[in-house]
């Protein structure tokens, strides 16, 4: 981008004789997405996760599954629409995993208006996340 070249020229003009810039560029053709959009999706997921714990009235500390179970669960989130969740994960007392799996699967597909609709009708959708949606943050 030209603005980065201009940044180099600006600093060279200020006496900096050598400048190194690394650039990562992302583009996509399936949707319009802003910087804020990308961050808000993750933030909504994090906020929703916290809401789950709080609304259940349970302790914030939960029984961590073993690393192997967690790895398997995360793999299933991306491949099996959350349905492949190990039975043990579904019966965790903190209730978070079943709810997160459906949302996270959608996130893996990208975030679009259809996804927003899905979340708004999702019974596990939290009030906090809906607030984000309403504010256009998610």
């Amino acid at each position: 981008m030209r603005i980065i070249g201009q940044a180099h020229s600006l600093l060279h003009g200020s006496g900096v004789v050598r400048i190194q810039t690394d650039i990562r560029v992302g583009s996509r053709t399936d949707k319009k997405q802003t910087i804020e959009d990308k961050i808000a999706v993750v933030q909504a997921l994090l906020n929703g996760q916290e809401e789950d714990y709080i609304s259940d009235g349970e302790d914030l500390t939960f029984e961590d599954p073993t690393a192997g179970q967690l790895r398997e669960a995360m793999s299933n989130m991306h491949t099996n629409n959350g349905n492949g969740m190990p039975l043990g994960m579904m019966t965790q007392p903190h209730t978070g995993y079943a709810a997160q799996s459906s949302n996270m699967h959608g996130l893996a597909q990208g975030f679009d208006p259809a996804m927003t609709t899905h979340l708004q009708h999702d019974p596990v959708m939290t009030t906090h996340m809906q607030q984000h949606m309403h504010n256009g943050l998610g």
Partner: protein
Amino acid sequence: MQHTDLVPPPPSETVNLPLLATPSACIADFCLVPIGTGSASVSAEIAEVQRLLKRSGLVFSMSSAGTTVGMYHDMISSTLKMLI
């Protein structure tokens, strides 16, 4: 990996490179580091760049390790022609 994998394919006859446009919208994250200033601090130079970005009208967001710049579809008509 076989050696032949390292040989670039011949240019496609169906693609005219001078006419091949770049994406109309993108988000770029860049990390600019001045070298040889005699100081380990880069804050003064980064501040200059941030002032430049602010004047550009682009959407940008600085973090502790770089700056993200957005070039969106709705900015193309006005800003793109001026900056890209």
